[in-house]
């Protein structure tokens, strides 16, 4: 079941985007660059689709249902976002928000970011995962700082300093984890490998495991945007180019949550170590509650949805903390569907803010009246994110709530308050964004044909929620078993 580690088709998944990044950097032509990005992400997605047939693990890479699932998802989001961003960036270029050099940097960084994300997802080695995540963070920081506005610079600074500290703490956790596994696995790569760690966890030093857990939780929790470690997220989402927000909301959170899941699995395998559930649940619950209440005062559309991402990420973390196959399954489903839906939201919000020439709520109203296609897409995406049928977040939220009811019923009211307060505001914002009298349009109109990626996401989200094929269900279940 071991893989040869390099030059394998698995390596193509992160490899193709990274090579594509190099290519774009060399080509120095933004228009061709955009097509290269699409081609690279498409090829990466195609390679990712083959992952389910290549289950196995090596020193550096690990393809199990969990990582394969999230890698396919990330590659898919990367592809659709690349399609959307070609048009988006062209418009930014036309309006002068970005110059040609920055556009080229954008394409390069986008692919770098995506490649390292995929690498982080597929890595079996804690160190590799860490390096990949770090590299992805840096490229994301640079992308966020691309627009030359004061706010963008501020946002990328906050992003960098917080994630930098977070990732540093995670590295410390990784060192301690290695130290904890030393007696069980001896020196060498084994003590840094998820698969080996999980197997050898009962023989690891419990107290060191605890220490490692704390540091990695804080480190990766920062990346997952868990309150109170989340401050970078609203700003980064609000100020960076919108297509990046779509990928940020989806993939970074997923990578961080995946690492937390794996960490949880290691911790849970050791009887002497502390129960990893409560701290994760507390952070998750805090995120749900605080983000929900914070939705109310927002004036900026993208920052608003960033808070919604924090809420959803918190919900997933909460479910991961609950533990058990059922809850982990729910968390996985939630992550998957949320990624799809939130990407659809950002894709349509991006188009809407370009159309209206601003991203304040006061600037974007009455979308359905002025641009029916865009307005309806946006409305559907918000409905999906708010957890209403026929979209999948509805299903995953039900699963999470009923798992909570089964395991810790006294937490249900808190969770429900968070969901209610958040969902209420989301839908109230649906009213102001999509309904009422439209504000004046300043940008290009967007028709149905340009919105197909968003609808593809929404349809997939609906299918996953209400008519999940048995094979995918079995596959997700296998993934959940890996992680719990």
């Amino acid at each position, binding site marked *: 079941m071991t893989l040869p580690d390099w030059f394998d088709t698995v390596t193509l998944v992160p490899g193709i985007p990274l090579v594509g990044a190099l290519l774009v950097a060399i080509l120095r032509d933004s228009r061709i660059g955009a097509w290269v990005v699409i081609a690279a992400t498409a090829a990466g997605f195609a390679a990712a689709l083959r992952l389910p047939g290549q289950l196995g693990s090596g020193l550096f890479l690990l393809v199990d249902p969990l990582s394969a699932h999230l890698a396919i998802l990330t590659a898919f989001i990367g592809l659709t976002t690349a399609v959307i961003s070609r048009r988006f960036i062209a418009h930014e270029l036309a309006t002068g928000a970005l110059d040609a050099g920055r556009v080229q940097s954008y394409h390069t960084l986008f692919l770098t970011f995506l490649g390292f994300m995929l690498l982080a997802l597929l890595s079996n080695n804690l160190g590799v995962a860490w390096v990949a995540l770090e590299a992805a963070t840096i490229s994301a920081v640079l992308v966020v700082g691309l627009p030359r506005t004061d706010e963008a610079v501020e946002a990328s600074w906050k992003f960098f300093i917080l994630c930098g500290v977070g990732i540093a703490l995670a590295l410390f956790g990784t060192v301690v984890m290695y130290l904890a596994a030393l007696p069980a696995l001896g020196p060498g790569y084994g003590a840094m490998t998820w698969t080996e760690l999980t197997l050898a966890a009962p023989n690891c030093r419990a107290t060191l495991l605890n220490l490692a857990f704390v540091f990695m939780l804080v480190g990766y929790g920062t990346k997952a945007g868990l309150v109170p*470690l989340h401050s970078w997220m609203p700003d980064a989402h609000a100020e960076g180019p919108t297509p990046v927000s779509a990928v940020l909301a989806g993939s970074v959170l997923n990578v961080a949550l995946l690492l937390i899941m794996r960490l949880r699995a290691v911790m849970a395998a050791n009887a002497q170590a502390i129960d990893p559930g409560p701290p994760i649940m507390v952070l998750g619950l805090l995120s749900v509650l605080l983000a929900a209440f914070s939705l109310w005062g927002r004036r900026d559309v993208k920052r608003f949805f960033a808070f919604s991402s924090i809420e959803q990420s918190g919900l997933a973390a909460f479910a991961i903390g609950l533990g058990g196959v059922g809850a982990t399954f729910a968390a996985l489903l939630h992550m998957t569907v949320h990624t799809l839906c939130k990407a659809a939201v950002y894709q349509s919000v991006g188009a809407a803010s370009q159309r209206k020439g601003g991203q304040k709520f006061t600037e974007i109203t009455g979308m359905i009246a002025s641009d029916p296609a865009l307005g309806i897409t946006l409305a559907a995406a918000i409905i999906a994110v708010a957890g209403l049928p026929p979209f999948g977040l509805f299903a995953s939220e039900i699963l999470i709530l009923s798992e909570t009811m089964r395991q810790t019923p006294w937490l249900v009211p808190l969770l429900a308050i968070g969901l209610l307060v958040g*969902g209420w505001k989301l839908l109230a914002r649906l009213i102001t964004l999509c309904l009422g009298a439209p504000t004046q349009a300043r940008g290009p109109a967007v028709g149905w044909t340009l919105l197909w990626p968003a609808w593809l996401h929404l349809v997939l989200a609906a299918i996953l929620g209400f008519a999940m094929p048995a094979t995918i269900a079995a596959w997700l279940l296998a993934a959940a078993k890996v992680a719990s």
Partner: protein
Amino acid sequence: MSDLVLSAALPGLTCVMAMLTAAVPVTFAIGARLTFASSFVLCAAGAVIDLTALIGGAFPASITLPLGLAGQSTVLSLDGVSAVFLLLVLLSGAAASLAARDDHGHPMATAAALPGFIAAMMLTLLAADAFALVAGFEAMSLASFILVVTNHRDDSVQAAGRLYIGMAAWSGLCLIAAVALLAPHGAGFAAMRAAPPEIWRASVILALALLGPGSKAGLVPLHIWLPAAHASAPAPVSALMSGAMTKVALYVLIRLVFDLAGPAQPSWWGVPFIMLGAMSAVLGALRANMETDIKTILACSTIENVGLITVGLGIALAARGADVPPLAGLAMGAALLHVLAHGGFKTLMFLAAGAVQYGAGSRALQRLGGLIHRMPITAGVMLLAAASLAGLPPSAGFASEWMLFQSVLGAVRLGGLAFQVMACVLAALMALATALAAAAAVRLIGVVLLGRPRSPGAAEAHEAGPPLRWAMLLGGLGVVLVGLFPGIVLSLTRAATSTLVHTTMSDRAGLFGITTASEAPGYAPLFILALLVGAALLIGTIMRARAVQGHRAAPLWGCGFDASPEWQPHGDPLAQYGGSSFAQPLRRVLGHSLLAARESVDMPSPGETRAAQLSISLQDPTQTFLFSPVGTVREFLSGLTDRLHFLPVRQVLTLMAAVLIGLLLYIAVVEQL
């Protein structure tokens, strides 16, 4: 052959549901009118199928669909209870679809969402597992939300939509929590029934059911979204929401409490139902007298009627707990009969309100009047429905209210002194509510249809178009039949009653009337009708024989108001009693304390030429005591969290350090333990 037909009932209904769902995207291809037509045909077909099943009584049947939560399948089932409610939904849906062809609003948005709305209600009713139930319920909320905000350019509609969707989210969450509590051993209804919850869990479920689906049905204290939302939607949708959706919410309540929470509950379970129901009835009826928008008035009356139904459910529950089957059957029969009757006449009333809105150009009482002259069919239908609203014999509203009073009388035997006193107060409150409803009905009819037109729009009003006219006439026929043959309608609820309270009304309901016990005197609408017609004939005969025939028309004498302007052939219309003036005595006596109604008069001093003004304000007690404080708390918390989110970088790092150190301390402490 008939077995074949009956076994095809559930698949047939499922097909209807699927086709209605499919109509949502198809609308954009085939256009609004065709969608309404197909929705009408589908609903009518479904109603026929459902009626066949109800008469044939082939219950329960179930089928499994390969859709649902994460690879699991969904079970749909048809039993007596769902069939009764389904009949209402489908008939009301058919009437609304037909009437919507006459809609002057936004036909595309309405057309796309209306079939989906009906399908979602059907799913809620047919669901036999937790997921389908919740999915149907939420889809129903979503579809109705879309319908509520179709006239979204209006700020008040947006506000109503905001409130509505928030309360919908609330009730959905309560439902999910209740269902999750019920389903530790499996999500199917069968599994839930096999393992009924223990008492504390059941009690939480009861509370959640009353707060969640209860709020969706319009029960006090979470009712305030209802008048705003029902008034905002296009009229056919309001009809469907008031007539059918509130009943679907009641169905969910019934399903959870009577069926899934176990076959036996303590008698006190009925008490919260009775109390909330009585409060809703009085508050709703009182508000119906105060409001000045015809659809808001009707929506408030819906709150009242839902309250009455809930009282019936409460008595049935208490009687079931105390093991008094005859009373349980009577109360449940009353509740179900009122469900059907109210569903019918409220649908009709809203359709007529729509005709008024489009025909006279306004829904405000102060801009209507005298419509009976130019809108004879609408007026006739409205009168018919208003008689039910007022609970006058032999209309559809009376039979169920009669049964309800009888069950309140019987409820005295269910408990100790406290319960008896409660029953006694309940009787008084219900009488108050029905009398208030009668006053509201008189006010509505008197101001809208009678007198002189109060605006040019009302003076130039035109009758509804043919589809709406047909919808109203057919609906009116149905309501008349329900009123005259309550026994027959009750016999349709036989299976439902026996499922829910293990007894039926079949020995007490017949073609000619209903009785409280077999062999006892009862209520015979046909006899009452005969008596009324006979008396009228007698009077007619006498008058023809004895009195001077015909009459002489003359201008109205109005205590000497100004000469009529050109466009007001009947004098200044504002010199007649209007909605606010009609409500004045009740506003002063009851509204002041219950609805915080305040009047302020701006009287110009002598010599000033401006007009005097009377302004009236009222606020629902729920708003005062629940929503405003909760809103304040929410705002406070949002302010608090905002401060957390927008800290300077340094303080954010401090937070991070605090989390890290906190967790380190946590493990240090846990390790010591």
